[in-house]
Protein backbone atom coordinates (compact mmCIF):
# COMPACT_ATOMS: atom_id res chain seq x y z
CA UNK A 1 0.00 0.00 0.00
CA UNK A 2 1.43 3.33 -1.00
CA UNK A 3 1.36 5.58 2.05
CA UNK A 4 -0.89 8.57 1.85
CA UNK A 5 1.21 11.76 1.69
CA UNK A 6 -0.37 13.68 4.52
CA UNK A 7 -0.69 10.63 6.78
CA UNK A 8 2.95 9.90 6.13
CA UNK A 9 4.07 13.40 7.11
CA UNK A 10 1.91 13.37 10.24
CA UNK A 11 3.21 9.98 11.29
CA UNK A 12 6.77 11.13 10.73
CA UNK A 13 6.18 14.24 12.84
CA UNK A 14 4.64 12.25 15.71
CA UNK A 15 7.53 9.79 15.61
CA UNK A 16 10.13 12.55 15.66
CA UNK A 17 8.29 14.38 18.44
CA UNK A 18 8.24 11.20 20.55
CA UNK A 19 11.95 10.63 19.93
CA UNK A 20 12.71 14.25 20.87
CA UNK A 21 10.55 14.00 24.01
CA UNK A 22 12.53 10.95 25.13
CA UNK A 23 16.00 11.96 24.01
CA UNK A 24 16.31 15.72 24.49
CA UNK A 25 16.07 15.72 28.31
CA UNK A 26 18.49 12.77 28.52
CA UNK A 27 21.00 14.59 26.32
CA UNK A 28 20.50 17.84 28.24
CA UNK A 29 21.19 15.99 31.47
CA UNK A 30 24.37 14.41 30.10
CA UNK A 31 25.56 17.79 28.89
CA UNK A 32 24.66 19.54 32.15
CA UNK A 33 26.78 17.03 34.06
CA UNK A 34 29.96 18.20 32.31
CA UNK A 35 29.13 21.89 31.86
CA UNK A 36 30.73 24.39 34.23
CA UNK A 37 27.50 26.36 34.58
CA UNK A 38 24.33 24.96 33.04
CA UNK A 39 22.47 28.27 33.10
CA UNK A 40 25.17 30.02 31.13
CA UNK A 41 25.32 27.06 28.80
CA UNK A 42 28.31 25.62 26.98
CA UNK A 43 29.99 29.05 26.89
CA UNK A 44 30.99 28.49 30.50
CA UNK A 45 33.14 25.57 29.35
CA UNK A 46 33.30 21.85 29.96
CA UNK A 47 34.48 20.40 33.23
CA UNK A 48 34.84 17.13 35.11
CA UNK A 49 34.49 18.99 38.40
CA UNK A 50 30.90 17.85 39.03
CA UNK A 51 31.74 14.22 38.28
CA UNK A 52 34.54 14.50 40.81
CA UNK A 53 32.22 15.96 43.42
CA UNK A 54 29.69 13.19 42.86
CA UNK A 55 32.38 10.54 43.26
CA UNK A 56 33.53 12.21 46.46
CA UNK A 57 29.99 12.45 47.85
CA UNK A 58 28.30 9.33 46.57
CA UNK A 59 30.87 6.72 45.53
CA UNK A 60 29.62 4.48 48.34
CA UNK A 61 26.16 4.31 46.75
CA UNK A 62 27.65 3.24 43.42
CA UNK A 63 29.67 0.45 45.01
CA UNK A 64 26.69 -0.75 47.05
CA UNK A 65 24.40 -0.77 44.01
CA UNK A 66 26.87 -2.86 42.02
CA UNK A 67 27.36 -5.23 44.95
CA UNK A 68 23.63 -5.64 45.48
CA UNK A 69 23.04 -6.16 41.75
CA UNK A 70 25.67 -8.91 41.62
CA UNK A 71 24.31 -10.49 44.81
CA UNK A 72 20.79 -10.38 43.40
CA UNK A 73 22.07 -11.99 40.22
CA UNK A 74 23.72 -14.78 42.20
CA UNK A 75 20.60 -15.53 44.22
CA UNK A 76 18.23 -15.36 41.24
CA UNK A 77 20.51 -17.75 39.30
CA UNK A 78 20.62 -20.27 42.14
CA UNK A 79 16.92 -20.03 42.93
CA UNK A 80 15.61 -19.39 39.44
CA UNK A 81 17.41 -21.57 36.89
CA UNK A 82 16.81 -24.97 38.57
CA UNK A 83 13.25 -23.97 39.44
CA UNK A 84 12.57 -22.83 35.87
CA UNK A 85 13.57 -26.27 34.64
CA UNK A 86 11.41 -27.97 37.28
CA UNK A 87 8.43 -25.79 36.33
CA UNK A 88 8.87 -26.11 32.55
CA UNK A 89 9.43 -29.87 32.70
CA UNK A 90 5.87 -30.84 33.46
CA UNK A 91 3.40 -28.02 32.85
CA UNK A 92 0.73 -28.88 35.41
CA UNK A 93 -1.84 -27.01 37.41
CA UNK A 94 0.60 -26.90 40.33
CA UNK A 95 3.41 -25.50 38.23
CA UNK A 96 1.07 -22.83 36.87
CA UNK A 97 0.07 -21.90 40.41
CA UNK A 98 3.69 -21.70 41.52
CA UNK A 99 4.51 -19.58 38.48
CA UNK A 100 1.58 -17.30 39.26
CA UNK A 101 2.61 -16.82 42.90
CA UNK A 102 6.25 -16.29 42.06
CA UNK A 103 5.51 -13.78 39.32
CA UNK A 104 3.01 -11.89 41.44
CA UNK A 105 5.62 -9.49 42.90
CA UNK A 106 5.95 -7.97 39.43
CA UNK A 107 2.29 -6.99 39.39
CA UNK A 108 2.25 -5.54 42.89
CA UNK A 109 3.75 -2.07 43.26
CA UNK A 110 7.17 -1.98 44.90
CA UNK A 111 5.87 0.36 47.56
CA UNK A 112 3.34 -2.22 48.79
CA UNK A 113 5.95 -5.00 48.75
CA UNK A 114 8.40 -2.86 50.68
CA UNK A 115 5.77 -2.00 53.26
CA UNK A 116 4.94 -5.69 53.70
CA UNK A 117 8.63 -6.57 54.15
CA UNK A 118 9.13 -3.81 56.71
CA UNK A 119 6.06 -4.79 58.70
CA UNK A 120 7.13 -8.45 58.72
CA UNK A 121 10.87 -8.08 59.30
CA UNK A 122 11.42 -4.54 60.52
CA UNK A 123 11.75 -5.86 64.09
CA UNK A 124 14.85 -7.89 63.25
CA UNK A 125 17.21 -4.96 63.61
CA UNK A 126 20.44 -6.53 62.38
CA UNK A 127 18.66 -7.76 59.25
CA UNK A 128 16.76 -4.49 58.79
CA UNK A 129 19.97 -2.44 58.97
CA UNK A 130 22.03 -4.61 56.61
CA UNK A 131 22.15 -4.41 52.80
CA UNK A 132 20.73 -7.96 52.86
CA UNK A 133 17.32 -6.43 53.49
CA UNK A 134 17.53 -4.54 50.20
CA UNK A 135 18.93 -7.65 48.51
CA UNK A 136 15.85 -9.65 49.54
CA UNK A 137 13.59 -6.98 48.07
CA UNK A 138 15.53 -6.96 44.81
CA UNK A 139 15.46 -10.76 44.54
CA UNK A 140 11.71 -10.74 45.14
CA UNK A 141 11.24 -8.21 42.37
CA UNK A 142 13.67 -9.64 39.77
CA UNK A 143 13.16 -13.40 40.23
CA UNK A 144 10.11 -13.53 37.92
CA UNK A 145 12.18 -12.08 35.07
CA UNK A 146 14.85 -14.75 35.45
CA UNK A 147 12.22 -17.50 35.68
CA UNK A 148 10.37 -16.32 32.59
CA UNK A 149 13.49 -15.83 30.47
CA UNK A 150 14.78 -19.33 31.24
CA UNK A 151 11.36 -20.99 30.92
CA UNK A 152 10.81 -19.34 27.53
CA UNK A 153 14.03 -20.83 26.17
CA UNK A 154 13.33 -24.25 27.67
CA UNK A 155 9.92 -24.25 26.00
CA UNK A 156 11.44 -23.25 22.64
CA UNK A 157 14.31 -25.75 22.39
CA UNK A 158 12.58 -29.06 23.16
CA UNK A 159 14.96 -29.92 25.99
CA UNK A 160 12.83 -32.91 26.84
CA UNK A 161 13.96 -34.89 23.80
CA UNK A 162 17.59 -34.02 24.47
CA UNK A 163 17.19 -35.04 28.09
CA UNK A 164 15.60 -38.34 27.15
CA UNK A 165 18.51 -38.97 24.84
CA UNK A 166 20.97 -38.28 27.62
CA UNK A 167 18.95 -40.42 30.04
CA UNK A 168 19.01 -43.37 27.64
CA UNK A 169 22.79 -43.09 27.67
CA UNK A 170 22.74 -43.44 31.43
CA UNK A 171 23.09 -39.81 32.56
CA UNK A 172 21.67 -39.09 36.02
CA UNK A 173 19.09 -36.29 36.41
CA UNK A 174 21.68 -34.00 37.97
CA UNK A 175 24.15 -34.69 35.16
CA UNK A 176 21.42 -34.01 32.63
CA UNK A 177 20.58 -30.72 34.30
CA UNK A 178 24.15 -29.45 34.25
CA UNK A 179 25.28 -30.92 30.93
CA UNK A 180 22.10 -30.76 28.83
CA UNK A 181 19.62 -28.28 30.31
CA UNK A 182 21.93 -25.46 31.38
CA UNK A 183 23.98 -25.34 28.14
CA UNK A 184 20.79 -25.31 26.08
CA UNK A 185 19.23 -22.58 28.20
CA UNK A 186 22.32 -20.37 28.02
CA UNK A 187 20.62 -17.69 25.90
CA UNK A 188 17.72 -17.36 28.31
CA UNK A 189 19.99 -17.37 31.34
CA UNK A 190 22.09 -14.60 29.81
CA UNK A 191 19.04 -12.48 28.89
CA UNK A 192 17.56 -13.07 32.36
CA UNK A 193 20.86 -12.16 34.01
CA UNK A 194 21.14 -8.88 32.08
CA UNK A 195 17.55 -8.03 32.97
CA UNK A 196 18.10 -8.79 36.66
CA UNK A 197 21.25 -6.65 36.88
CA UNK A 198 19.65 -3.76 34.96
CA UNK A 199 16.52 -3.78 37.12
CA UNK A 200 18.45 -4.12 40.36
CA UNK A 201 20.80 -1.21 39.62
CA UNK A 202 17.85 1.07 38.81
CA UNK A 203 15.39 -0.12 41.47
CA UNK A 204 13.96 2.73 43.53
CA UNK A 205 10.37 2.05 44.62
CA UNK A 206 11.27 -0.78 46.98
CA UNK A 207 14.73 0.45 47.85
CA UNK A 208 13.66 3.89 49.01
CA UNK A 209 11.53 2.27 51.72
CA UNK A 210 14.03 -0.47 52.57
CA UNK A 211 17.22 1.59 52.77
CA UNK A 212 18.79 3.02 55.92
CA UNK A 213 21.22 5.96 56.11
CA UNK A 214 24.04 3.42 55.93
CA UNK A 215 22.63 1.38 53.07
CA UNK A 216 22.01 3.93 50.32
CA UNK A 217 22.01 2.65 46.74
CA UNK A 218 22.62 4.65 43.58
CA UNK A 219 18.95 5.50 42.83
CA UNK A 220 18.43 6.49 46.47
CA UNK A 221 21.44 8.78 46.20
CA UNK A 222 20.04 10.14 42.93
CA UNK A 223 16.74 11.07 44.59
CA UNK A 224 18.75 12.69 47.36
CA UNK A 225 20.80 14.75 44.90
CA UNK A 226 17.70 15.80 42.91
CA UNK A 227 16.20 17.19 46.09
CA UNK A 228 19.21 18.90 47.58
CA UNK A 229 22.07 19.42 45.13
CA UNK A 230 22.66 21.89 42.32
CA UNK A 231 21.50 20.86 38.89
CA UNK A 232 25.03 20.16 37.61
CA UNK A 233 25.79 17.70 40.39
CA UNK A 234 22.44 15.96 39.96
CA UNK A 235 23.16 15.74 36.24
CA UNK A 236 26.69 14.45 36.70
CA UNK A 237 25.34 11.78 39.04
CA UNK A 238 22.68 10.85 36.47
CA UNK A 239 25.44 10.69 33.85
CA UNK A 240 27.32 8.16 35.97
CA UNK A 241 24.11 6.15 36.25
CA UNK A 242 23.69 6.23 32.47
CA UNK A 243 27.26 5.03 32.00
CA UNK A 244 26.41 2.02 34.16
CA UNK A 245 22.99 1.26 32.72
CA UNK A 246 23.22 2.02 28.99
CA UNK A 247 25.73 -0.73 28.12
CA UNK A 248 23.48 -3.18 29.98
CA UNK A 249 20.48 -1.94 27.98
CA UNK A 250 22.28 -2.22 24.66
CA UNK A 251 23.38 -5.76 25.54
CA UNK A 252 19.83 -6.56 26.59
CA UNK A 253 18.45 -5.34 23.25
CA UNK A 254 21.03 -7.43 21.39
CA UNK A 255 20.51 -10.65 23.34
CA UNK A 256 16.82 -10.10 23.90
CA UNK A 257 16.26 -10.26 20.15
CA UNK A 258 17.73 -13.75 20.05
CA UNK A 259 14.99 -14.90 22.42
CA UNK A 260 11.57 -16.12 21.33
CA UNK A 261 9.17 -13.23 21.00
CA UNK A 262 6.77 -13.73 23.91
CA UNK A 263 8.73 -14.77 26.99
CA UNK A 264 5.66 -14.94 29.19
CA UNK A 265 4.11 -17.67 27.10
CA UNK A 266 6.88 -20.04 28.07
CA UNK A 267 5.75 -22.98 30.11
CA UNK A 268 2.06 -22.51 29.44
CA UNK A 269 0.37 -25.51 27.95
Amino acid at each position, binding site marked *: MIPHRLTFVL*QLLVTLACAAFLLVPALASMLAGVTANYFQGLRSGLTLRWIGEVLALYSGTIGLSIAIALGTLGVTLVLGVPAAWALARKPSRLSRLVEEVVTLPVAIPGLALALALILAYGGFRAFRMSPLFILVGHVLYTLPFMLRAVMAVLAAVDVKALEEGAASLGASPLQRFFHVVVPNAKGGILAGALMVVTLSIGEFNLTWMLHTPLTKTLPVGLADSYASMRLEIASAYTLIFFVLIVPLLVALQMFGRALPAAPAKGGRP
Partner: protein
Amino acid sequence: MRSADRLAVLFLAPLFAFAAAFFVLPLAELVLVAGSGPNGAFEYLAILANPRHVQTLVATLALSAGVSVATLALGTVVALFLARTRFAGRALLVSALTLPLAFPGVVVGFMIILLAGRQGLLGAFTQSLGMDRLVFAYSMAGLFAGYLYFSLPRVLVTLMAAAEKLDPALEEAARSLGASRLAVLRDVTLPGLSPALIASGAIAFATAMGAFGTAFTLATRIDVLAMTIYTEFTLNANFATASALSLALGLITWGVLALTRNMAGTGVAAAG
Protein backbone atom coordinates in the same frame (compact mmCIF):
# COMPACT_ATOMS: atom_id res chain seq x y z
CA MET B 1 11.81 -40.56 35.20
CA ARG B 2 11.16 -40.96 38.90
CA SER B 3 14.55 -39.69 40.02
CA ALA B 4 14.06 -36.61 37.84
CA ASP B 5 10.79 -35.90 39.66
CA ARG B 6 12.64 -36.04 42.95
CA LEU B 7 15.27 -33.64 41.62
CA ALA B 8 12.52 -31.26 40.45
CA VAL B 9 11.04 -31.18 43.94
CA LEU B 10 14.49 -30.53 45.35
CA PHE B 11 14.98 -27.69 42.88
CA LEU B 12 11.63 -26.09 43.68
CA ALA B 13 12.05 -26.23 47.45
CA PRO B 14 14.36 -23.20 47.81
CA LEU B 15 12.06 -21.15 45.59
CA PHE B 16 9.07 -22.16 47.69
CA ALA B 17 10.93 -21.31 50.90
CA PHE B 18 11.95 -17.89 49.60
CA ALA B 19 8.48 -17.05 48.32
CA ALA B 20 6.88 -18.19 51.58
CA ALA B 21 9.26 -16.26 53.82
CA PHE B 22 9.57 -13.03 51.88
CA PHE B 23 6.36 -12.78 49.93
CA VAL B 24 3.45 -14.79 51.36
CA LEU B 25 4.30 -14.08 55.00
CA PRO B 26 4.87 -10.32 54.57
CA LEU B 27 1.65 -10.01 52.56
CA ALA B 28 -0.24 -11.81 55.32
CA GLU B 29 1.33 -9.36 57.78
CA LEU B 30 0.15 -6.48 55.58
CA VAL B 31 -3.40 -7.82 55.68
CA LEU B 32 -3.22 -8.21 59.47
CA VAL B 33 -1.78 -4.75 60.06
CA ALA B 34 -4.42 -3.19 57.83
CA GLY B 35 -7.03 -4.69 60.14
CA SER B 36 -5.29 -3.76 63.37
CA GLY B 37 -5.93 -0.01 63.42
CA PRO B 38 -8.60 1.74 65.49
CA ASN B 39 -11.14 0.78 62.83
CA GLY B 40 -10.26 -2.90 62.97
CA ALA B 41 -11.21 -4.91 59.95
CA PHE B 42 -13.28 -1.95 58.80
CA GLU B 43 -10.13 -0.05 57.85
CA TYR B 44 -10.90 -0.90 54.22
CA LEU B 45 -14.28 0.76 54.55
CA ALA B 46 -12.66 3.64 56.43
CA ILE B 47 -10.56 4.38 53.37
CA LEU B 48 -13.68 4.68 51.28
CA ALA B 49 -15.35 6.86 53.92
CA ASN B 50 -12.44 9.30 53.83
CA PRO B 51 -13.20 11.79 51.03
CA ARG B 52 -9.53 12.68 50.65
CA HIS B 53 -8.54 9.09 50.00
CA VAL B 54 -11.42 8.58 47.61
CA GLN B 55 -10.40 11.73 45.77
CA THR B 56 -6.80 10.49 45.59
CA LEU B 57 -7.94 7.10 44.32
CA VAL B 58 -10.11 8.68 41.64
CA ALA B 59 -7.32 11.08 40.60
CA THR B 60 -4.83 8.22 40.38
CA LEU B 61 -7.21 6.08 38.34
CA ALA B 62 -7.97 8.98 35.99
CA LEU B 63 -4.29 9.88 35.58
CA SER B 64 -3.33 6.27 34.90
CA ALA B 65 -6.16 5.78 32.41
CA GLY B 66 -5.25 9.05 30.66
CA VAL B 67 -1.58 8.08 30.43
CA SER B 68 -2.47 4.65 29.07
CA VAL B 69 -4.72 6.07 26.35
CA ALA B 70 -2.19 8.74 25.36
CA THR B 71 0.68 6.24 25.31
CA LEU B 72 -1.31 3.77 23.20
CA ALA B 73 -2.36 6.47 20.73
CA LEU B 74 1.20 7.76 20.26
CA GLY B 75 2.64 4.25 20.37
CA THR B 76 0.30 2.99 17.64
CA VAL B 77 1.17 5.83 15.28
CA VAL B 78 4.91 5.40 15.85
CA ALA B 79 4.86 1.60 15.72
CA LEU B 80 2.87 1.48 12.47
CA PHE B 81 5.13 4.11 10.94
CA LEU B 82 8.33 2.32 11.91
CA ALA B 83 7.03 -1.08 10.86
CA ARG B 84 6.11 0.10 7.37
CA THR B 85 8.79 2.58 6.47
CA ARG B 86 12.38 1.77 5.70
CA PHE B 87 14.86 4.65 5.74
CA ALA B 88 18.44 5.35 6.67
CA GLY B 89 18.80 5.81 10.40
CA ARG B 90 15.67 3.81 11.20
CA ALA B 91 17.56 1.41 13.47
CA LEU B 92 19.06 4.38 15.30
CA LEU B 93 15.61 5.92 15.76
CA VAL B 94 14.25 2.64 17.14
CA SER B 95 17.16 2.47 19.59
CA ALA B 96 16.56 6.06 20.66
CA LEU B 97 12.89 5.35 21.26
CA THR B 98 13.48 2.22 23.33
CA LEU B 99 16.65 3.18 25.17
CA PRO B 100 14.88 4.90 28.10
CA LEU B 101 13.28 1.52 28.84
CA ALA B 102 15.22 0.96 32.03
CA PHE B 103 15.34 4.50 33.36
CA PRO B 104 13.90 4.24 36.86
CA GLY B 105 11.05 6.51 37.95
CA VAL B 106 13.36 8.89 39.82
CA VAL B 107 15.47 9.50 36.75
CA VAL B 108 12.33 10.01 34.65
CA GLY B 109 11.24 12.62 37.19
CA PHE B 110 14.54 14.42 36.70
CA MET B 111 14.11 14.28 32.92
CA ILE B 112 10.75 16.04 33.33
CA ILE B 113 12.34 18.65 35.58
CA LEU B 114 14.96 19.32 32.91
CA LEU B 115 12.22 19.55 30.32
CA ALA B 116 9.51 21.50 32.12
CA GLY B 117 10.95 22.52 35.48
CA ARG B 118 11.81 25.98 36.75
CA GLN B 119 15.00 26.08 34.68
CA GLY B 120 13.69 23.68 32.06
CA LEU B 121 14.20 23.62 28.32
CA LEU B 122 10.55 24.31 27.50
CA GLY B 123 10.54 27.33 29.78
CA ALA B 124 13.65 28.73 28.13
CA PHE B 125 12.12 28.09 24.72
CA THR B 126 8.78 29.77 25.42
CA GLN B 127 10.59 32.68 27.05
CA SER B 128 12.76 33.15 23.97
CA LEU B 129 9.53 33.39 21.96
CA GLY B 130 8.49 36.27 24.18
CA MET B 131 5.92 34.29 26.19
CA ASP B 132 5.83 33.37 29.86
CA ARG B 133 8.14 30.59 31.00
CA LEU B 134 6.25 27.34 30.58
CA VAL B 135 6.65 25.38 33.84
CA PHE B 136 4.49 22.38 34.64
CA ALA B 137 6.84 19.75 36.02
CA TYR B 138 5.66 19.97 39.62
CA SER B 139 1.98 19.28 39.02
CA MET B 140 -0.37 16.61 37.72
CA ALA B 141 0.64 17.63 34.17
CA GLY B 142 4.28 16.99 35.05
CA LEU B 143 3.35 13.60 36.45
CA PHE B 144 1.39 12.87 33.28
CA ALA B 145 4.46 13.73 31.19
CA GLY B 146 6.63 11.60 33.47
CA TYR B 147 4.43 8.53 33.20
CA LEU B 148 4.22 9.04 29.44
CA TYR B 149 8.02 9.12 29.31
CA PHE B 150 8.11 5.98 31.39
CA SER B 151 5.50 4.00 29.45
CA LEU B 152 6.19 5.01 25.86
CA PRO B 153 9.34 2.87 25.34
CA ARG B 154 7.69 -0.18 26.94
CA VAL B 155 4.52 0.14 24.89
CA LEU B 156 6.54 0.71 21.73
CA VAL B 157 8.55 -2.48 22.12
CA THR B 158 5.35 -4.54 22.28
CA LEU B 159 3.48 -2.63 19.57
CA MET B 160 6.40 -2.61 17.13
CA ALA B 161 6.72 -6.39 17.43
CA ALA B 162 2.98 -6.75 16.79
CA ALA B 163 2.96 -4.27 13.89
CA GLU B 164 5.81 -6.17 12.18
CA LYS B 165 3.67 -9.29 12.22
CA LEU B 166 0.60 -7.72 10.63
CA ASP B 167 -0.08 -9.08 7.18
CA PRO B 168 -0.09 -6.13 4.70
CA ALA B 169 -2.07 -8.26 2.23
CA LEU B 170 -5.13 -8.01 4.46
CA GLU B 171 -5.10 -4.23 4.26
CA GLU B 172 -4.52 -4.27 0.54
CA ALA B 173 -7.45 -6.62 0.12
CA ALA B 174 -9.69 -4.34 2.16
CA ARG B 175 -8.56 -1.32 0.15
CA SER B 176 -9.12 -3.07 -3.17
CA LEU B 177 -12.63 -3.92 -2.02
CA GLY B 178 -13.25 -0.21 -1.62
CA ALA B 179 -12.79 0.37 2.10
CA SER B 180 -11.61 3.86 3.00
CA ARG B 181 -8.29 4.33 4.77
CA LEU B 182 -10.08 5.08 8.02
CA ALA B 183 -12.24 1.98 7.66
CA VAL B 184 -9.16 -0.16 7.02
CA LEU B 185 -7.52 1.25 10.13
CA ARG B 186 -10.64 0.67 12.21
CA ASP B 187 -11.65 -2.74 10.87
CA VAL B 188 -8.37 -4.38 9.88
CA THR B 189 -5.27 -2.79 11.37
CA LEU B 190 -6.39 -1.98 14.90
CA PRO B 191 -8.14 -5.34 15.47
CA GLY B 192 -4.92 -7.00 14.35
CA LEU B 193 -3.00 -5.02 16.92
CA SER B 194 -5.56 -5.43 19.67
CA PRO B 195 -3.85 -8.18 21.73
CA ALA B 196 -0.70 -6.05 21.86
CA LEU B 197 -2.76 -2.91 22.59
CA ILE B 198 -4.55 -4.60 25.49
CA ALA B 199 -1.37 -6.08 26.94
CA SER B 200 0.73 -2.94 26.71
CA GLY B 201 -2.14 -0.68 27.78
CA ALA B 202 -2.55 -2.76 30.92
CA ILE B 203 1.14 -2.45 31.68
CA ALA B 204 1.09 1.29 31.19
CA PHE B 205 -1.95 1.53 33.48
CA ALA B 206 -0.47 -0.70 36.18
CA THR B 207 2.89 1.05 36.22
CA ALA B 208 1.24 4.46 36.38
CA MET B 209 -0.95 3.31 39.28
CA GLY B 210 1.99 2.11 41.34
CA ALA B 211 4.76 4.45 40.20
CA PHE B 212 6.36 6.18 43.11
CA GLY B 213 9.79 7.41 42.06
CA THR B 214 8.56 9.96 39.52
CA ALA B 215 5.99 11.50 41.88
CA PHE B 216 8.60 11.52 44.62
CA THR B 217 11.09 13.43 42.48
CA LEU B 218 8.60 15.92 41.07
CA ALA B 219 6.74 16.92 44.22
CA THR B 220 5.60 15.38 47.44
CA ARG B 221 2.40 17.40 47.20
CA ILE B 222 0.81 15.71 44.22
CA ASP B 223 -2.03 13.60 45.58
CA VAL B 224 -1.62 10.21 43.96
CA LEU B 225 -2.06 6.90 45.69
CA ALA B 226 1.63 6.02 45.96
CA MET B 227 2.46 9.39 47.57
CA THR B 228 -0.44 9.07 50.01
CA ILE B 229 0.72 5.61 51.09
CA TYR B 230 4.22 6.94 51.55
CA THR B 231 3.21 9.93 53.66
CA GLU B 232 0.73 7.90 55.73
CA PHE B 233 3.46 5.39 56.49
CA THR B 234 6.54 7.53 57.06
CA LEU B 235 5.22 10.88 58.20
CA ASN B 236 1.97 9.98 59.96
CA ALA B 237 3.05 6.47 61.09
CA ASN B 238 -0.47 5.42 60.19
CA PHE B 239 0.40 1.82 59.42
CA ALA B 240 -3.16 0.50 59.16
CA THR B 241 -4.23 3.05 56.54
CA ALA B 242 -0.97 2.68 54.61
CA SER B 243 -1.37 -1.10 54.59
CA ALA B 244 -5.02 -0.99 53.53
CA LEU B 245 -4.20 1.47 50.74
CA SER B 246 -1.24 -0.67 49.60
CA LEU B 247 -3.46 -3.72 49.44
CA ALA B 248 -6.07 -1.81 47.47
CA LEU B 249 -3.35 -0.60 45.09
CA GLY B 250 -1.87 -4.09 44.76
CA LEU B 251 -5.28 -5.60 44.08
CA ILE B 252 -6.10 -3.06 41.38
CA THR B 253 -2.81 -3.46 39.49
CA TRP B 254 -2.76 -7.24 39.87
CA GLY B 255 -6.40 -7.44 38.82
CA VAL B 256 -5.89 -5.35 35.71
CA LEU B 257 -2.81 -7.33 34.67
CA ALA B 258 -4.43 -10.72 35.36
CA LEU B 259 -7.61 -9.75 33.52
CA THR B 260 -5.82 -8.50 30.44
CA ARG B 261 -3.34 -11.34 30.43
CA ASN B 262 -6.19 -13.76 30.07
CA MET B 263 -7.61 -11.54 27.34
CA ALA B 264 -4.40 -10.98 25.44
CA GLY B 265 -2.48 -14.13 26.23
CA THR B 266 0.75 -12.42 27.19
CA GLY B 267 2.09 -11.05 30.40
CA VAL B 268 4.88 -8.64 29.83
CA ALA B 269 6.17 -7.34 33.09
CA ALA B 270 5.49 -4.01 34.65
CA ALA B 271 8.87 -2.83 35.75
CA GLY B 272 10.13 0.21 37.59
